[in-house]
């Protein structure tokens, strides 16, 4: 008799668990759809500016989907319900990073051409010199000339990257131009501007 009651209790508990889980199926499905839409909307821009954070949100979405596939609806619901807010945070982080990079680009776009122009002017004059100044031998001067050609090209590439909407790449290239231009100026016995000195 006791065994019979125990069996019924086990079956009832099992049925309650199944019913509880099934009850969460629709909300979980809706939460997953909302999460997918939110992540999808934020992803493209975020991937450009905060790729590390995108991975975390994508992993969370995948975990929610996996739980749903395994019919673990309550778990799927819990995993998915916070994702729209996380996607919003992702979009905010991407916007903040984009603003920071744009500011950095604008500063360098205003300043780097002055450095490149100063180097070009000095290289043009030194190319006409019958003898190089002290502390500048022919090899160093040739290195500076090829460096000038290199930064001129990289600066053009940076401008194209910015025009193409790839601000992170544009800023990376501009930083490379800044470092190389400062190095060339030092080689030529020139003072690099304050903004180009290592902090």
């Amino acid at each position: 008799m006791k065994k019979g009651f125990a069996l019924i209790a086990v079956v009832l508990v099992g049925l309650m668990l199944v019913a509880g889980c099934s009850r969460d199926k629709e909300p979980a499905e809706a939460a997953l759809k909302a999460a997918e839409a939110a992540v999808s909307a934020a992803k493209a821009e975020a991937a450009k500016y905060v790729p590390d954070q995108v991975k975390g949100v994508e992993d969370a979405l995948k975990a929610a989907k996996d739980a749903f596939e395994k019919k673990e609806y309550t778990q799927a619901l819990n995993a998915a319900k916070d994702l729209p807010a996380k996607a919003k945070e992702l979009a905010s982080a991407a916007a903040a990073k984009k603003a920071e990079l744009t500011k950095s680009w604008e500063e360098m776009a205003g300043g780097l051409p002055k450095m490149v122009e100063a180097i070009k002017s000095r290289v043009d004059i030194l190319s006409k010199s019958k003898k190089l100044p002290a502390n500048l031998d022919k090899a160093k001067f040739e290195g500076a000339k090829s460096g000038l050609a290199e930064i001129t090209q990289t600066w053009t590439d940076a401008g194209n990257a910015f025009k193409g909407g790839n601000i992170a790449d544009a800023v990376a290239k501009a930083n490379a131009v800044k470092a190389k231009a400062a190095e060339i100026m030092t080689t030529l016995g020139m003072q690099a501007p304050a903004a180009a000195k290592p902090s």
Partner: protein
Amino acid sequence: MAEEKAGGDAWDSTQWHVVQKGESLWKISEQYYGDGSLYKKIFEANQDILSDPNLIKVGQKLRIP
């Protein structure tokens, strides 16, 4: 004597030289370019303050292109 510009535009890449006693444009040109005969480049870059390449004053700040 080379001088760094203080304040103002942090990207200003103008190169300056403060004239010392006994210096001439020829001598300054030799210092920066290795060739005194290029002194005209410095004269041309400073025509707002120089009217004669043979007349420079101690303490004058010259642009070195």
